[in-house]
């Protein structure tokens, strides 16, 4: 380490490294800044040279427009879908993960291998027939097609199995001797121990559902059911009138909640996405 440090300590190399990191960090932050700035900008000043970040004429007019057009309803829909998907998925995935991690039963290995194998089926193959099935179930224009099919998904069960298998068997045996039923063990012992893992997985589920666009695009019809991404894509103004300011307002509303959650739970979040990659 000492040699490495002396060798690379040279100011030039370090300046280069900082330069690269800072350039990339700025590129990453730029769209967020531009989104926020444009959502407040009067129409006439959005474009122009030199570009301006702050204007005396900034206002919340863009937000007034989107609120009048039902963006809050859409925000609520997005939250509702993301929250229910997350809560149900966490329950069923940890239940399945518990089944695979802590029970020896005939057929366990083939069943688990099958579960993993289903992950290679791409959405492009199931998209059309699933739509037809949803039509037959009369689930079009409801949130059910967005929530139900994925609540016990293979990735989540795999993830929770890994997590639960680190819990010691003695603990569970002790609970069994005390007369705790299998579901009781799951509910009173496994779930509380798994809170960190559930947080990681829950963040991934929540993000996926919050940002989902293809699902709502296929299944939602009436505008009062739209989620934010769909709301943004479907929002058009009067002819010849660019809605950039208003679009950016919706973008801010759809981005900020996730960014806040991410900042609060950053460690859990990165743990979640790396656990799948490094172990798998």
């Amino acid at each position: 380490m000492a040699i490495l440090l002396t060798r690379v300590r040279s100011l030039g190399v370090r300046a280069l490294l900082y330069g690269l990191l800072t350039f990339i960090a700025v590129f990453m932050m730029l769209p967020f800044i531009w989104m926020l700035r444009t959502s407040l900008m009067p129409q006439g000043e959005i474009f122009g040279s030199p570009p301006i970040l702050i204007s005396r004429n900034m206002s919340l007019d863009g937000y007034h427009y989107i609120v009048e057009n039902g963006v809050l309803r859409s925000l609520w829909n997005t939250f509702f879908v993301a929250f229910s998907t997350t809560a149900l998925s966490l329950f069923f995935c940890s239940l399945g993960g518990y089944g695979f991690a802590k029970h020896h039963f005939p057929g366990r290995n083939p069943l688990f291998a099958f579960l993993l194998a289903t992950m290679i089926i791409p959405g492009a193959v199931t998209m059309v027939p699933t739509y037809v099935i949803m039509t037959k179930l009369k689930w079009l224009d409801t949130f059910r097609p967005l929530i139900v099919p994925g609540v016990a998904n293979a990735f989540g069960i795999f993830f929770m199995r890994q997590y639960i298998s680190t819990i010691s068997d003695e603990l569970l045996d002790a609970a069994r001797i005390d007369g705790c039923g299998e579901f009781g063990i799951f509910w009173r012992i496994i779930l509380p121990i798994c809170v960190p893992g559930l947080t990681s997985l829950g963040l991934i589920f929540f993000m996926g559902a919050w940002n989902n666009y293809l699902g709502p695009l296929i299944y939602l019809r009436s505008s009062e059911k739209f989620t934010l991404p769909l709301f943004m894509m479907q929002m058009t103004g009067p002819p010849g009138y660019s809605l950039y300011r208003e679009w950016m307002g919706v973008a801010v509303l759809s981005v900020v909640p996730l960014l806040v959650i991410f900042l609060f739970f950053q460690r859990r979040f990165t743990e979640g996405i790396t656990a799948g990659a490094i172990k798998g």
Partner: protein
Amino acid sequence: MARGVVVSATNGKRRELWREIVRRRWAYVFISPFYILFLGFGFLPVIFSVYLSFHKWKGLGPMEFVGLKNFTYLFGIGGKAFWQSIQNGIILFFMYVPIMTFLALVLAVILNSKLVRFFQGYRTMIFAPYVTSMIAAGFTFGLMLQQKGGLFNTFLNMLGLPGVPWLEDIWWARVSLCLLVTWGWLGYNMVIMLAGLQTIPRELTEAALIDGASPVQAFFYITIPLLRPVILFSVILSTMGSFGLFNEVQALTGGGPMRATLTTMVHIYNVAFGNFRFGRASAQGYVYFALIFVFTLLQLRYFGREE
């Protein structure tokens, strides 16, 4: 006589198996939700999709059996858009995956080396786009990439350079799409590689440096080979990503100009829900699946051969 013994032995085994299954019934109850949902929303669609791919159907009314027509159609004039989308996937893959993967690796190595301060700050900023809705980001990029008065061209003009037709030209539109995708996924790849780097003992590179290797040599001859599985994982994900791009395309380019950024996922969506050709879309879904499968196998063979 002997046969009777065998039969009773298998009967005994079967009875024992059954007893075991009954004894472990709770485990089956716990894992059953996945299999029930898969039956309805995985297995059934996969089978139904095969059936549909041999029929002509607009989603309403009777289905018409057309044999292999939905597949042979792809090799005629009508299949042009499909193959264009496959070609676009390959082009996009080569345009952004090598650069993004390399950049993610370099950033991960820099952040892991403890040579720079503000590790947390840089990591947070580079990773933040990953949690962002690509619809929102696509609109924002569209705004910044406007040919007249967009942020990027204004900058170029201020530097005395001519503006670029970011979304109007075939190749520039692909560049723009790659910019957006790299913006969204660089941090994800970097975080995965950071986690991979943390599994490599620090002593390995240090020993090489003591023996006189340069940091660049250590990077190429020690870090990259040891990180191979993680790199492979990230490249395979990006492969599926480049054919399956959907939100990014819809929000930024809509597949244009002249289908230059039409990805296979967008194409299949258009066939299914734009033209209501459910049979054709199903057939193309399967061809797409087969191609992705082959690409992935090739990559596993090419990159994974030393394992």
